[in-house]
């Protein structure tokens, strides 16, 4: 097992899980368009999700556009 922090919550993924699998674990509906991912504060481009493995304890943020201004 692999424990990461996904959008602020501790989550367990299968060992060797990639960024793509973390995105799927958020429950974001397919296709995964309009999303962006940061791992430990660094942007992981869309094209690299499938071949970017995650490491124990990493912080993964999966973001989308929402209504909003100031806050």
């Amino acid at each position: 097992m692999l424990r990461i922090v996904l959008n602020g919550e501790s989550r367990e993924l299968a060992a060797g899980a990639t960024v793509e699998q973390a995105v799927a674990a958020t429950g974001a509906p397919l296709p995964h368009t309009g999303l962006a991912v940061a791992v430990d504060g660094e942007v992981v481009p869309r094209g690299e999700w499938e071949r970017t493995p995650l490491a124990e304890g990493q912080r993964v943020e999966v973001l989308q556009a929402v209504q909003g201004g100031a806050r």
Partner: protein
Amino acid sequence: MSGLEIAGRRFESRLIIGTGGFRSLAAMAEAIAASGAELATVALRRVAPDAQGSVLDLVREAGCQVLPNTAGCFTAHDAVTTARLAREALGTDWIKLEVIGDDRTLLPDAAELLDAAATLVEEGFTVLPYTSDDPVLAARLEDAGCAAVMPLGSPIGSGMGIGNPYNLRLILERAGVPVILDAGIGTASDAAIAMELGCAGILLASAISRAEDPARMARAMRLAVEAGRLAHDAGRIPRRLYAEASTPLEGVPELS
């Protein structure tokens, strides 16, 4: 009346609308349509799988280009990362740059803002910074390569209008990029005044989204922006202390 040009892109409408604060996505879509805006700001937040509908689809259906913002960022580092994420998520290198320095007033953090602007320009972004009404900072942002400067009229969501029109005039006099009034607009006359002063455009959200009837206020803002721009281009009469008759005094009959 020619439109608003930012970084070589032309917009018929001089009104940019924020998508925050609406009671529903339907209310937002209706207001965007009524506003005539062609640019709409969106924020980036953690995915919520149960979210009802996509703000992106609605904005694009309304014929708007999406303008991501860095709302909620308090450091240059976070704002730069958010801009990179927005580019990744939305496929645009346009960014409304906000770096907030104070939780209660939501006023910009000048030092962090300038730092983030320089980094993002360097990375090829088209940077539209939300700034204070400080003419020196506005000049520094322009010098850093920002495609526009967006001074506040008064704090975000305050509806207090243009607190310091003299500073705004100083910014306008010097600016070589579009000056877009961002924040503080409360009602239509505030928008008209900003346009009369010479602003190239207005960015507002709360004044429409939190109005009792957002679609109606959106239309009011659209007309106010157009009216203010027309009045600016038409050239107003000077202010005088005493009256100046518009009717000639020659030929007045003696009647007593």
